[in-house]
């Protein structure tokens, strides 16, 4: 029961209380880039959940099996993690193209974008390498905790992205002052949306 509660808190904490997009600003490029239409956002959200989970798994193994025993973690983690993620995305793309063309068609175009998405690197770094975590929980995650946390974060990414895309579709037809049209107004909207998430801060002491 104790562990179940702990995992549930990690999930909610990652997804809502510390929402990666709206309360921590990680991964804003796709947030403003693909949120023009609801369909693309859905594809992107799916791809992020998928890649982020895999990336944390891979970097966790890489960190604990290779970097820590060799004693090079502190100064090689940046190039190592980004290369692991880039290679992983490449493999996933090749595998999907062969194994499941229909899934590839819906997720494929987002995969290269995700390599340079800071959300993936940030979550992998935070949940794998001790020293960055700010959520009030002791870091030094076990494998299970890292995985649950990552799933939570990626779900939070998806929720925020879809909400924002839906808002932006309505904004297209709204009467907006000329100078604010386009991105400036998108920022103001994101600001208002982020107010909602600020209200969740401190929930469950996270």
């Amino acid at each position, binding site marked *: 029961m104790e562990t179940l509660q702990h995992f549930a808190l990690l999930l909610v904490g990652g997804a809502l209380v510390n929402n990666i997009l709206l309360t921590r*600003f990680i991964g804003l*490029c796709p947030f*403003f880039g693909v949120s023009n239409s609801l369909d693309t956002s859905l594809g992107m959200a799916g791809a992020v959940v998928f890649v982020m989970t895999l990336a944390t798994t891979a970097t966790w193994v890489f960190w604990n099996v290779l970097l820590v025993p060799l004693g090079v973690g502190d100064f090689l983690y940046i190039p190592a993690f980004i290369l692991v993620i880039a290679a992983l995305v490449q493999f996933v793309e090749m595998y999907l193209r062969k194994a499941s063309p229909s899934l590839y068609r819906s997720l494929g175009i987002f995969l290269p974008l995700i390599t340079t998405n800071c959300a993936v690197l940030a979550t992998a770094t935070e949940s794998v390498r001790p020293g960055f975590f700010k959520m009030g929980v002791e870091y030094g995650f076990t494998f299970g905790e890292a995985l649950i946390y990552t799933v939570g974060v990626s779900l939070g990414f998806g929720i925020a992205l879809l909400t924002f895309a839906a808002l932006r579709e309505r904004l297209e037809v709204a009467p907006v002052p000329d100078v604010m049209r386009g991105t400036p107004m998108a920022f*103001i909207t994101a*600001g208002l949306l982020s107010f909602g998430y600020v209200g969740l801060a401190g929930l469950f002491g996270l």
Partner: protein
Amino acid sequence: MREWIAVFKRGISIDNPLTVLMIGLCATLAVSTKLEGALFMGLAVIFVLGMSSIIVSSIRSLVPEQVRIPVFIVIIASFVTVVDLTMKAFLPDIYTFLGVWIPLIVVNCMILGRAEAFSYHQPVRLAIADGLGMGLGFSIVIVVLAAIRELFGSGEIVFLGARLIALPEWYRPPGVLLLFPGAFLVFGFISALAKWYNTRTSGRVVQTDAHCTIEEGVR
């Protein structure tokens, strides 16, 4: 020389990475709660962008088209590691404040995007101009944003432990400016201002459309 200056100035004004190209936003919004943090973030970005522009541009004829992205990433990651370890050693307070944002400079679309779009095709001397101009354009916007947020959000600007400016006692700072929504709101107005200014001075309607240049590059 005139070409050099023209390229340099473009990064600050009409091709400003933040207000016009809308790349590298994440770090900007996140670290702009404190002026000192923003300033050092700007310096780190200028260093990484300038150095990686030089290297990418000088080896551009050796790097085949197909493997250019991994090569760029490794070059950028090496310079980011230099910044990471230097800051950890000499500026531990700032390092703690910036936290995960230092390693995230690697995936800052701005740096990879400039390597891809500019340095890979241009001679070294112009690549330096572009790197410095873009880095400076980034730093100016992030410092202005941080100054507004810190001054009006907390009522004073503290720089490396010294109090630079303080607003009078009767000013009750709205804390929301320091919270997450404040960053979005203030930046929304800054980008509207930049759009208005650029449209007026350059006489053309500057298209501000959020995108990441790398998305075409990787494919």
